[in-house]
């Protein structure tokens, strides 16, 4: 890559709730460079998750612009396509489909890309191998430990080869040891694959692992 171009560029983002009484985002400007590991830190209620939803094309801002690889998310008609092609999510809770096996869960995003069955399976297996669950392909979420479930979630987030990986307190529900393992795995996979990672956390220790930290407070960036 030549110049460290921005993969995402947000300007003057505003998002309010309850008819404007709550300003979750109050004029946020943010640039995310291709390949970087960015932490979004701040206390709970600071607007971290809201920001993640905006840049993750899960919700639309009230005003402002977000360009993801040059596409304006405020104008895009089909946010689902953008999510399917360019984004991966890891949530605090694993959010796996309870009735589906690990492999089927990892395959789920590929349905949105209309990928043939065989290719879906190959990709999902390869990723589950990569997260160390090669021998747990056919286990259901209830048959897996908390850490293992989060590994499945990471595999699912990467299966569509996203440009941007978004993680919202991915270790929030894990004990310290399991949490560290998950973070190590996430960082390792990101390095290997050159994925841009945005990690939302209220934990300053975890935020400290990032190349750059953006702090949010009351919907504004305080260390811009």
């Amino acid at each position: 890559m030549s110049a460290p171009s921005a993969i995402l560029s947000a300007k003057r983002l505003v998002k309010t709730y309850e008819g404007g009484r709550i300003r979750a985002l109050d004029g946020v400007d943010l640039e995310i460079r291709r390949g970087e590991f960015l932490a979004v830190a701040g206390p709970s209620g600071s607007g971290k998750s809201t920001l993640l939803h905006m840049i993750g094309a899960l919700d639309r801002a009230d005003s402002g612009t977000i360009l993801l690889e040059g596409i304006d998310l405020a104008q895009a008609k089909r946010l689902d396509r953008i999510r399917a092609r360019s984004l991966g999510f890891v949530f605090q809770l694993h959010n796996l489909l309870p009735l589906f096996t690990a492999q089927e869960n990892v395959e789920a995003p590929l349905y949105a890309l209309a990928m043939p069955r065989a290719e879906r399976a190959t990709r999902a297996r390869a990723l589950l191998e990569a997260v160390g669950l090669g021998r747990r392909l056919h286990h259901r979420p209830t048959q897996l430990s908390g850490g293992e479930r989060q590994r499945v979630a990471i595999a699912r987030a990467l299966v569509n080869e996203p440009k941007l990986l978004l993680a919202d307190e991915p270790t929030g529900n894990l004990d310290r040891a399991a949490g560290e393992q998950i973070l190590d795995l996430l960082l390792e996979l990101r390095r290997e694959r050159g994925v841009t990672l945005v990690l939302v956390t209220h934990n300053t220790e975890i935020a400290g692992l990032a190349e750059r930290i953006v702090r949010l407070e009351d919907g504004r960036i305080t260390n811009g």
Partner: protein
Amino acid sequence: MLGFRNLLRRKVRSALTLIGIAVAVATIVSLIAISRGFRKQFNNLLSVGDAHLVLSRKGAPDPFISYLPESLLSDLSVFPGVAEVYPSILGIAQIPRQPFFFLYGTVAGSPLLEQVRVIAGEELFAPGADQPRLCLGRSAAEYLEQELGSTITLGDQEYEVTGIFEAPTPLLGSGALLPLADAQRIAGLEGKLSEVLVQLESFTPEDLAAAESALEQRFPEVEAIEPAEFTKAFMEFDLADQAVAFFSILAVIVGGIGVMNTMLMSVFERTRELGILQAIGWSKAMILRLVLEEGLLLCLAGGPAGIALGVASIEAVGAWGQFSWVAGDYGPALFVEAMIVAVGMGLLGTFYPALRAVRITPIEALRYE
């Protein structure tokens, strides 16, 4: 198949919904088959041999409540183009264990007798017999445990069973054939006739149409119709069709609400899951398809189950001696109609839940955290 998987996850609920659909479909199939069966039976009853036209009372509600004056016969027999007339009585008597004992009063040579095959005893009009005679249909004989020589009390008189017959039409086979005068007396219809079978000298379609209108013009109280369309003369069959339609619609509504209830529960329960699927890239169309697929699968399974249940219940009723005159008229066409109803019910019941599913946003689902 993701939809199939989702149905399996709540086996009891899916099974109960499937049963609901099956019962609705079975209700429709059995009602329609029975009402069509009656039409077919009555149309077949008189569609025999040389019966070219059937006369009944204009405006009569059903073939058993059609009264024509016996005096009509002499006028009819000299009517131009009429070769032969065969009067008949269709009556119902109440006897122990059978409140619907069908009596068919007829005369020697009547085309009605052509579909009767005597399997024991004598023909109704065997030569040289003058005591009260009665030929009993085979299924009536079996149900009433009567045999040749046993007696049945009808009205104030005892009738000996002098013959037992088989007939292709269950309505006939579950009743008794008697000479016209006996049937008139038992049914309290002295001097009256139910239907008159008319044999014409010439019976091209034009002749039939001409004879119909000429007869109706000459005898204003008479409705003349071809035997194969006999039931068109009676309002009751139309009323029955309307009742069937009404109950069918009710069944569809009940079944549809069952599907809707199940699918709504299943959608509400999975708010988070459906939101997550969207977060990982599934489009609204894919969510819609998933939910519709589940509803349709329920109906595609419930439809055949309902058809089987409906057919089984008609056959069970027909096999029950007292109702051996019930015969369902069903076939591939009705089954196809039933499947269309089942699928329609599925779409109807799944449409709203699917809309609710589509309205779920990923954000809403994530708030469940």
